[in-house]
C-alpha cells in the first residue's frame, strides 16, 4: 500500500474487510496460504469491487432535485471499448515475494508513465492556429477520471522572435461544474458539460488569430490536478500538480 494512500486513511481493510470477513479473489495467486481465513469471491477481482470508492453520488442528495454522480469511473468504464478490468491496469501482476501477485501500488493519476500512455497526441497547423487530436489508447474510462479536480489542458502559443507569446489559446478537457444555490440555501455543484476523451479521437482546434500565421507555434498537452478554491472558472484554478503528457512545436507557415 503506498504511503500516500495510507496517510489519507486508505488501508487493507478499505477493500478487503466486509463485516467479519476478509475478502479475496477466487483464485489464490500466492503459493503460501494466508495467515487468516479468507472469503474468496470472483466478484472481488471485477470492476464492481472498485465502485465503493470510484462511483458514488454527491453526499448532498437531500438538497438536489435528483442525485448526481461525484465520481463515475465505473459508468465510464462500461461506456468505453475496453474489456479489461480495473485491476488489469491499476493492479498489474507483478513478481515479488513468494509468487506473482497483483500490485498494490495502485498506479493512477500520479504515475507519469501510465498517464502519458492514456492518449496519443497529434498536432498540425491550421491557418491561424493549431489542431490537436487526442486519441485514447491505454485507458478504460474517460481521461481524466476520478474526482472533480482533474483536467487535461490543451494549449498553444505563437512565439515571436524574442520568445515572446504573440498569441495564445487553451482548452480544458474535464467535467465542467457550476455552483448554484439550491432552494435550501446551500450551494451545490452540478455538471454542465463533459468533454473528456473516452473512446473516440477528440479534435481540438485552437485559434490564435492572424498574428500567429507567420510565427512558430508551441503546443502542449498536460494532465493537471487542480483545485478551485475560489470559483469554478477554469482560469482561476490553482494547479496542485501537473504531468506534461507531450508537447511540440509547429513551424511557421511556408
Amino acid at each position, binding site marked *: 500500500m503506498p504511503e500516500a494512500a495510507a496517510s489519507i486513511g486508505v488501508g487493507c481493510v478499505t477493500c478487503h474487510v466486509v463485516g467479519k470477513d476478509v475478502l479475496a479473489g477466487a483464485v489464490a495467486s500466492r503459493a503460501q496460504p494466508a495467515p487468516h481465513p479468507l472469503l474468496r469471491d470472483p466478484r472481488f477481482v471485477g470492476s464492481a469491487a472498485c465502485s465503493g470508492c470510484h462511483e458514488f453520488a454527491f453526499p448532498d442528495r437531500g438538497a438536489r432535485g435528483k442525485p448526481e454522480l461525484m465520481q463515475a469511473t465505473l459508468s465510464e468504464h462500461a461506456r468505453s471499448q475496453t474489456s479489461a478490468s480495473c485491476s488489469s491496469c491499476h493492479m498489474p501482476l507483478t513478481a515479488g515475494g513468494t509468487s506473482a501477485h497483483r500490485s498494490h501500488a495502485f498506479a493512477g493519476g500520479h504515475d507519469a508513465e501510465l498517464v502519458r500512455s492514456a492518449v496519443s497526441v497529434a498536432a498540425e497547423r491550421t491557418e491561424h492556429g493549431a489542431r490537436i487530436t487526442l486519441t485514447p489508447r491505454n485507458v478504460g474510462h474517460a481521461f481524466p477520471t476520478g474526482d472533480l479536480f482533474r483536467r487535461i489542458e490543451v494549449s498553444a502559443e505563437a512565439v515571436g522572435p524574442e520568445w515572446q507569446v504573440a498569441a495564445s489559446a487553451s482548452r480544458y478537457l474535464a467535467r465542467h461544474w457550476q455552483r448554484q444555490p439550491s432552494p435550501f440555501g446551500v450551494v451545490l455543484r452540478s455538471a454542465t458539460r463533459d468533454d473528456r476523451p473516452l473512446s473516440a479521437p477528440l479534435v481540438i482546434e485552437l485559434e490564435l488569430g492572424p498574428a500567429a500565421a507567420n510565427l512558430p507555434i*508551441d503546443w502542449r498537452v498536460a494532465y493537471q490536478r487542480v483545485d478551485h478554491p475560489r470559483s*469554478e472558472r477554469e482560469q482561476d484554478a490553482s494547479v496542485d500538480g501537473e504531468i506534461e503528457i507531450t508537447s511540440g512545436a509547429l513551424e511557421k507557415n511556408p
Partner: protein
Amino acid sequence: MKELAIWGALAAIACGGPTTVPTKPAAPPPPASPSGTTAPTAAGASTPSSPFKVIGEVGGDNQLFAAGERGFVLSQFGVELELVGDEIVQEPLLKRGLPAEPFMISVEAIAGRWPDALWLSTTEPSGRSGYSTAWSWDGKSWSRKQRTTEGHFINGVQPWTSGRMLALKQAGMAFEASFLLLSGDPHVTLPEFSRTKQAEPFAMCMTNLRIDAWRALPSGEVVALGMRCDTGDDMPLAVERWAAGAKNSTLTTLPETLPSGDVKSVEWSSTTLGALSASDIFVASLKETTTNPGNDQRWLKSDYFAHFDGKSWQVLPAPIPEGVSQMWVESDGVLFASNRKDELWSRSVTGEWAHVPWPELPADAADVSKFKLESLWPRGPGDVWAIVSTLANEYGHRYLLHTRAAPHPMPTEEAKAEKEREYALPGPPVDSCTTPFVLLYTLARKSPADYDYPATREALKGHGEFSAMKFVEFERDGRKFFGARAPDFKLGKKLAQLVQDKVPGSTPQLVCHDPAHTRQLDIDLKSGKLRQ
C-alpha cells in the same frame, strides 16, 4: 471573535481598563442553578501553565474573525492572514476588489462561510456620518453588493438557518435596527424588531432596542441584547428574542435594570451576550448608577450578570472576578468570558468556571494595565485562537495566540510584503501611480532561462533616453515576463512604442506595477550589448 462590525465606539470588543470599585459586596458562591453556574476556581490560587502558545506578532490593528471553520486576521485594509487548520497562511488574493488606496475606507469584519458565502463589511465616512458596504467574495475578488443609507451601519453577519447569512443593520445614533438576508434562500420570514409607538421618520426612538450584541442560532432563533428606549429617560437592558421562523419577537426588560430607590439613573457599558441555546442565555454588563441621597450625588459601578433558562431571567452574581466584559461560545457548549483585567475564563458544559492563564509574551505583559485581550475565537475544543496586545513600549505589540502549535512559522512582515508585491495585479496607468511599468513580453514556456533579448537590445541601441529604465524579468503563476520599470509614463509610452515598432509580434502595455523581479538585465544603451 469580534462580533460587531461597527462604527466608532461600538467597535470595542473587549474593553478592559481601570474602573471604580464595585459597590456590591463580594459575591457568595452562587446557588446551583438550572444553567449549572458554580463558583469559579480562583485565578491566583495556582499558576498552571497556559494552554496558549504565542504564534507570532501581528499588525497593530489586527483582529480575529471567523467564517465557519476558517479564521481570518483582519486589519483595516483587509485580510492579512487566514487560519486554515493550524496553519497561518497569507493569501494576497483576499485583498482584491477593495479600494487600492483605502485612506477613507475601513474594513470592519468578515463573516459567513468559506468559500461560497463569504462576506466582508466596510465603513466609509459620508457627510457628517458614514455608511457600511457589504462585499461578497465571488471567487476572484470582493464585489460590492449592498450599502446602507447614510448613518446606518452593518453590525455583524452571522450564519443562520440552511446556509443563510443574516446581517444586522443599525443606525449609528438613533434606535433603529433591522435584519438583512445577505445570501441564501430568500423564501424565509425575517425577524423584525418591535417598533415604538412614536416611530416617526425623524424620531430617535424607532425600534425599542439599540443592539449591543446579537446572535443567530443554528436552530433558527435570534437573540438581541441592548438598551431599551421606549421607557422614557430610563434605558434599561432588554432582550428581544425571535422563535425560529418568527417575524415578531418577545421583548423582555431584564430584571433589576431600571432605576429604583435612591438611584437616579442607570447607564450600561460593556454589554455582552453568550447564547448557548435559545433556552440557555447569559448576559453581562457594567452598571453605572447615579444615586442622589439629598444633594450628595454619587456614581457607582457594579457588575450585572443574568441568565435565561427558556422561561425567565434570573440575576446572578458575577461568576468571575472583575465582572464579565465579553463572552464567546464554543461549538461544544463551552463559554469563554473575559473580565476588566482582560483575564480569560472558561465555563464548562457542566457549569464550572476556570481561569485560563495567558502565556508569557515576548514583551513584558506582567503589568495588567498594559495588557489587553483584543479578540478571541474558540473554534472548537482545544482549538482557541486569540489576539492580545501589550504596551510594553510606547508603540505596543500585538500577538496571535493559539492553543496548538503552528506546523509552520507565521509569515514575517517582510515575507508578507514581498508576496503582496508578487501577487499585485498590474493596474491602469493613472497619474497617481508611483510605479510605472512597461510590460514588454509574456515569455513562451520554452524560452531559455538566460535569454538575452537581442532584438530588443538592437531596438534600444542608441536610445540613451531610456537610461533610467530598469529591465527586469519576473514570474507569476509559473510564467515568466519581461518588462521595464519606468521613471514616468511619458518615457514608458515612448519605450512601448519603440519596441512595438521594432520587435515583430510584440504588443507592450503600459501599466502600474511593481513586481518582485527574478532577474535584472543591465543593457548598455550606447552599444545595445548586455553588460556583464
